[in-house]
């Protein structure tokens, strides 16, 4: 059972870390100063969430593991992040759409996980929920403004939906590890979150005058560490310093 909880923590941590790393790429490149700060704030929230879950995994695993071992010394196939968070930023519209789709999921996910029978997971979820509530508010506001904005903003946000939609199904997949943990009320049954997620997305898309895609083939694989070609490049950049100088400190 302990190994299942460790695996679960790594999944949650990896998703938050890779999303944080992606958003961090905007640092110094935001469309305006205020939005540059907003995106990197969200990035730091995500990295903070990742640290919490890695630290708990390290505590359970023992063997003097630290959060850095998980973040910097694992390879692509060992990462368990959701496929959608490793998708490239492309432009502001696609970054916002990715954030909106993920934040909506995380909002319902952490809201459920805060009732976990594992008290550490419940506490980490309660803290993360506050952060994600803001991420959802910020990204929703932008989806509405870009969708119902200019011809150009609409074209860009529509193309971002086409790019990202196939990766949304992966968020709700359940495998044996999660089913066993959900049975014991430790993990969230993500499948059950899908109707809530769809309702919220529909609501914001309607306000943004955007259409929800129908009958799209869904990619899957995050739970087995099967990634898109993007993750390798993210890790190469994120891990290079630590691998060149093992144990380096600021």
């Amino acid at each position, binding site marked *: 059972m302990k190994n299942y909880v460790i695996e679960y923590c790594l999944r949650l941590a990896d998703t938050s870390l890779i999303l944080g790393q992606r958003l961090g790429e905007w640092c110094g490149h935001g469309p305006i*100063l*205020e939005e540059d700060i907003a995106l990197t704030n969200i990035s730091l929230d995500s990295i903070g969430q990742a640290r919490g879950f890695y630290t708990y995994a390290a505590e359970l695993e023992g063997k003097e593991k630290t959060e850095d071992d998980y973040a910097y010394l694992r390879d692509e196939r060992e990462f368990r992040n959701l496929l959608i968070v490793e998708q490239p930023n492309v432009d502001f519209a696609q970054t916002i759409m990715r954030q909106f789709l993920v934040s909506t999921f995380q909002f319902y996910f952490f809201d459920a996980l805060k009732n976990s029978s594992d008290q550490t997971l419940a506490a980490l979820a309660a803290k993360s929920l506050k952060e994600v509530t803001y991420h959802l*508010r910020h990204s929703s506001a932008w989806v509405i403004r870009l969708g119902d904005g200019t011809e150009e903003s609409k074209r860009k946000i529509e193309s971002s939906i086409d790019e990202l939609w196939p990766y949304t199904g992966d968020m709700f997949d359940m495998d044996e590890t999660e089913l066993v943990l959900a049975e014991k009320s430790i993990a969230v049954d993500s499948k059950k979150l899908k109707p809530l997620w769809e309702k919220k997305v529909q609501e914001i898309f309607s306000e943004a005058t955007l259409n929800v895609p129908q009958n799209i083939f869904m990619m899957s694989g995050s739970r087995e560490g099967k990634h898109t070609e993007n993750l390798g490049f993210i890790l190469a950049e994120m891990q290079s310093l630590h691998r060149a100088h093992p144990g380096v400190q600021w």
Partner: protein
Amino acid sequence: MTKDTQWPLWEVFTQKKQGAPHEHAGSVHAADKELALQNARDVYSRRNEAISIWVVPTEAIIASTPEDVGSFFDPANDKAYRHPNFYKTPEGVNL
């Protein structure tokens, strides 16, 4: 002069604790009031500096000009009797 292509400017006021006044923290650019509030939150309270935020369109603020200084403020200089400092504060009153 180049044309200003920035979004409208908003003045940000933050309150540090319950009961304290909202004080001017700075300004942000934003296209509308909801995003002005969010930008203000991200720029001026991300390090836990505030418990409440106001944003006000900069153009809604009417300010005195340097030319007003003489007529506005100088007459206050020589009227010491306007300041209530001829009274002794009773014991037990904390100012």
